[in-house]
């Protein structure tokens, strides 16, 4: 049985692990530190959405391995025609798919959507209803948002709790039933809406949106929220369940080195060293350690190096944080060392100065099965570690699934 070691527990790593396991490999997943996926708010994109007015361009359906992974996770809905999400910043935006707790507006016919209004710091339902109604997408679909009173917090401390904590409280069936009761009560005085959009409170273990909708009799779901929302937690729970069910061994720890070698002449193997000193031997390795945000890459401006008087030597602006035979690329070219003792100026390679920032593109170049260019066989990369890949959830999932299949079958 082929041994595959996956490094990284974000969406790319999990996709690789599940896909490789589905192809019969013996899979170990190392590294359980939170990264970009855990911070993602639950919209599944494969490209920037801001330039698409209203609806996303048609895309080919996701490849089979990626669909398999989504199925195993069970927490997400992806639709070919896309979904529409209301964000707590006041926009209605398209996405390719979403966390199942989020309300998809795309399936609704024209009509009113209820936004429960209650005293909660930073959550101004009246304003949100106005802002969502005012958005081009809502107008085009004749969706109107109406804010109506419904007291949804139960205890005094809930005024100061972040959304994720409130979401955890709604894992309790009794609490969810209480919420349903309040909504049913609100519906008695409000003309029947098509759906109810709620703060991001619908569960941490699982999405409770389905349950709630059944109890209320109207589709209910969350608005998309940024920092402090529960979507990342739901990913972690879904991931842990899926990995356990598939029989993937999960090892806590932090990988510092991946070395190509072998204990015998005929067996070519990968030796992966953990920070603890432990060594894991495997036939193939998938590095899905994330980009800048996930921690797989590090931005290294020369000026940040602690040094007394001498200017630090020139160095390239980014490096991989795992010692492995990897070369970094961006825009299909090797990452060069700038001709400056102080490193290249941040203005030339970061958002918002650059339209297409180099820091968004940098990574390891790989073929579509994640085989790293120039590296010995058996080394695959996935997710944001891949150069020039869009930094999106679905792109990470797809690249992870491909890398997992290739690692198991090569």
């Amino acid at each position, binding site marked *: 049985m082929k041994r595959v070691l996956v490094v990284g527990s974000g969406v790319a790593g999990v996709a690789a692990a599940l896909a490789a396991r589905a192809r019969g490999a013996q899979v170990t997943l190392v590294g359980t530190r939170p990264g970009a996926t855990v*911070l993602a708010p639950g919209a599944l994109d494969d490209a*920037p959405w801001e330039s698409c007015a209203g609806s996303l361009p048609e895309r080919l359906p996701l490849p089979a391995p990626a669909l398999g992974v989504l199925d195993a996770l069970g927490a997400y809905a992806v639709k070919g025609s896309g979904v529409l999400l209301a964000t707590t910043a006041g*926009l209605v935006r*398209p996405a390719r798919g979403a966390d199942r707790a989020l309300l998809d507006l795309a399936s609704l016919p024209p009509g009113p959507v209820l936004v429960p209004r209650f005293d909660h710091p930073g959550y101004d339902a009246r*304003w949100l209803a106005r802002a969502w109604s005012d*958005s081009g997408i809502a107008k085009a679909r004749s969706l109107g948002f109406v804010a109506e009173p419904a007291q949804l917090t139960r205890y005094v401390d809930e005024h100061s709790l972040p959304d994720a904590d409130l979401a955890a409280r709604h894992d309790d069936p009794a609490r969810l039933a209480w919420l349903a009761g309040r909504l049913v009560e609100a519906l008695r005085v409000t003309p029947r809406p098509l759906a109810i959009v709620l703060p991001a409170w619908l569960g941490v273990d699982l999405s409770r949106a389905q349950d709630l909708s059944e109890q209320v009799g109207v589709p209910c779901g969350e608005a998309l929220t940024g920092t402090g929302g529960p979507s990342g937690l739901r990913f972690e729970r879904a991931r842990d369940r899926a990995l356990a069910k598939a029989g993937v061994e999960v090892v806590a720890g932090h990988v510092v080195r991946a070395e190509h070698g072998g204990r015998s002449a005929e067996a070519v193997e990968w030796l992966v060293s953990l920070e603890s000193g432990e060594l894991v031997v495997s036939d193939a390795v998938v590095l899905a350690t994330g980009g800048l945000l996930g921690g797989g890459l*590090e931005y290294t*401006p020369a*000026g940040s190096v602690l040094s007394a008087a001498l200017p630090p030597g020139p160095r390239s602006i980014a490096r991989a944080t795992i010692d492995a035979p990897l070369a970094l690329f961006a825009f299909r070219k090797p990452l060069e060392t700038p001709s400056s003792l102080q490193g290249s100026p941040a203005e030339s390679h970061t958002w*918002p100065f650059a339209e297409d920032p180099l820091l968004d593109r940098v990574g390891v170049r790989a073929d579509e099965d994640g085989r790293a260019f120039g590296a010995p066989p058996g080394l695959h990369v996935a997710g944001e570690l891949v150069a020039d890949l869009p930094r999106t959830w679905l792109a990470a999932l797809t690249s992870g699934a491909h890398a997992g299949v290739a690692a198991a079958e090569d």
Partner: protein
Amino acid sequence: MSAGENGAPHVRGSAPPPSLRIATPPMRVDDLATDATFDVAVVGGGVNGTGVARDLALRGLEVALFERHDLAFGASGNSSGMIHGGPRYLVNNPNVTRTSCLDSGIVQHIAPHLLFRIPFLVPLKSGPLGKVMLELYDAFFRAYDDFQPLKRGKPHTRLDVSDVARLEPGIVGSIAGAVTFDEWGVDGARLAVLNTVDARERGASVYLHTAVESIAKAPREEGGPPAYVLAARDVLTQRAIRVRARIVVNATGAWSPITAALGCLPSSRIRIRPAKGIHVVFDRRLSNYAVLTEAIDGRQIFLEPWQNMSVIGTTDDDYYGDLDDVTATSEEVRYLVQGIARIFPQIREARAIGTYAAVRPTMYAYGPYEDSLSREHAVVDHAPDGAPGVYSMIGGKLASYRLFAQEMSDRIAEVLAPDTVCTTHEKPLPGGDRVPDALPLAAQHELLPVLARRLVYRHGSRVSRILARMTKRPTERAIVCVCEPVCEAEVRHAIGEEMARTVDDVARRTRLGLGACGGMRCAARCGQIVAEELGLPPREGMAQARSFLTRQAKTRVVAMGTAQARQEALALAQMRAMLGTKGDT
């Protein structure tokens, strides 16, 4: 170049016509139609312009104040944030030191809540001259001590090596000792805001985000004095207004020559040598003292604890760029960090959360290094240019703004209100009358102590108005900006009472979004509140939040290191998910 209604060029940067005479526009019926008539029109919402507006309003004159961006948009809101006593003038011009210290004392008197003590420490390198330098500095600051009582400063102290190690353990390297001296910090943006609020409450009309497009001579009434018509446009609503004023004051700092050109005045008469200065902001107070040291080229630079952060500064470089878009570059940041790190190496590991930059309106001279240019100020009377009653205020510095405003106002009062005297040194600025104690206030109103402290710092006795809002509507107790912190009531107060019209304006008045998170947790909510308060469409609030976040990111990334790069990636991902990075949908 397009021509304004009056035939006067109104495009920024346009060259003045060859004639030195102010253009008299052809008579047209609508030339006579003005929206309002004032005694004085002040152009420029920095400390000088708002100081003049307040001074004249206190004397009972009818004043209009115009500002193209927001109050304290330029040098006033982006300085080192100190009302210092000017020790550097002590040797050659002790009278400047005296007046600076005196005025520092006066500002403490009229706005006691807004000033905070910044003790400075000057470490002196050991070496053959180390002991001698220590003696010299000791003697120098002994002389400066004579002026300290004027500004309630404490006398200097002389520290030996072990004192320095104990009091400022972050300092490294071999030193002979140090001297300390006392200065005062201030929030320059608040200072301009308070002057404006006071002027407005005393009858002045204030037009913010309103660009003056032309200044032309009004048709002269029979036997009457000369007067001017200012055509201006609200840049947010595009609404045009025209006002008539007897006297016009150009207090536009680095923009002064450009403003003069709008009135067809020769910019050569008010030449300035614009010099850019940048500061880098760190997320917390890193030192007990402000530490003075030298950059690689021998220039004096400093690390100062300022409000709840640390600031390093500053550069001083001739500036040839766009005055409306002055930003720090990563090169300038490295220059400062390198200089500070030699004596305070932790700075390299500290978290820079942003930069700010502005252009000093230094008086013109060809030849000297930027640092040696005079920080003096002067009033230019444009009567010799054919425009009697038009004045330009040039040069100056934050510490002497009130005095400069008084000098300007005295000149105007000679003509328009000869029986009046300046009272800006006696009458407290808004909130400066009875400054409450923050901690009992926090207990009484169940506020976070830090929130109460920050509220009292910014609003003095006027904190009562914000507390009244919270009592009336408890939801306004919600914290909008966690880093500073800023509560919803304060945001609404800034819009309602302090004339904030954008997220950016709210940030300038409350420091919302200028903390460690860079506005990621508060800009969108603040945009919602601004839109709601001003009756703007929701998308306008979102657009404001987006542009605030983008601009903040620009000031941050030039100072980012490895750890911040990760945070930047998160900020960008969050913004993409919630608001998008461009356009609207």
